[in-house]
């Protein structure tokens, strides 16, 4: 496929439009990572407090596999628009999720326990 004059849209592999190999590679990697996630959640081989970190790493890796092999997003020059939009989306997602968790954890921490609050109101 010829390089488009204005970059190319997500989801289209510029080098191999008629082959299924990127989808097969993506499917294989995603399957391995999925099975690894389910294994990690129920194994006793991994130090228990480290399991959430391992699960997060596996999930982020699998999201990366999907973006690279199913969406065909890369940091190539003709994909600058797609890549910058993705970076902004990831940034806002991180702000919302981690910001909410942090704020709510602080609020919980500073809040009087509910039963003492009830006692004061009597």
């Amino acid at each position, binding site marked *: 496929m010829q390089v488009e*004059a204005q970059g*190319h849209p997500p989801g289209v592999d510029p080098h191999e439009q008629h082959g299924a190999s990127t*989808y*097969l590679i993506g499917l294989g990697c995603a399957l391995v990572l999925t099975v690894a996630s389910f294994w990690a959640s129920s194994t006793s081989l991994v130090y228990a407090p480290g399991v959430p970190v391992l699960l997060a790493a*596996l*999930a982020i890796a699998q999201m990366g596999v999907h973006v690279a092999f199913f969406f065909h997003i890369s940091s190539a020059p003709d994909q600058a628009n797609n890549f910058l939009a993705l970076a902004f*989306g990831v940034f806002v997602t991180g702000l*919302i999720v981690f910001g909410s968790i942090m704020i709510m954890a602080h609020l919980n921490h500073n809040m009087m326990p509910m039963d003492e609050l009830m006692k004061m109101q009597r």
Partner: protein
Amino acid sequence: MSTGEQALHGSAGVPLALRGPAPLKVVAGFGFWLFLLSDIIVFAALFAAYAVLSDSTAGGLSGAALFEKPRVLLETLCLLASSATCGFGTLAMFRTDARAMYFWMGITFLLGVCFLSIEGREFASMVAAGAGPSHSAFLSAFFTLVGTHGLHVSMGLIWLIVMLLQVTTLGFDPMVTRRLYCFGLFWHALDIVWIGVFTIVYLGAR
């Protein structure tokens, strides 16, 4: 390579102002990509709500007691396989191979229906066990997050039927291919959201 040759063969050496308008396919693809990213931000808000409320079980059962992992693994495999078959269907569409396109998109549709029926059965059994969305903040957040994803999958299936009917009636018209290609992007995005759901909601349940 001279500047003229570069202008003919690639975008690298040509200033942005001289490149002319982008083709419709690029504009539509990029616009739909922006829509998908904003849809993922909607899910980010629901994930944040779930993460904050997941311990507020109001004395009811927690996630670890309610969720069944084998069922979730089956749902995950359905959705993952349907993402790949959807990719094969999109490739068949690009080479205007109608039979292969119907075949792969049909499998995509069936796998989506499998996913929804497993999820529907899970919701029904939870509601029957008294763990409906009105029981606790944790269950409200759970049903909102997972239900919104399920609603997206249902909408995607309706969209897929409409697109297959459009291919049948209009053929591989540029407008129809563009829409079917956007459907493929939508379907891959739902799979990415599901990775977050099964990791945070089901595998991270305490």
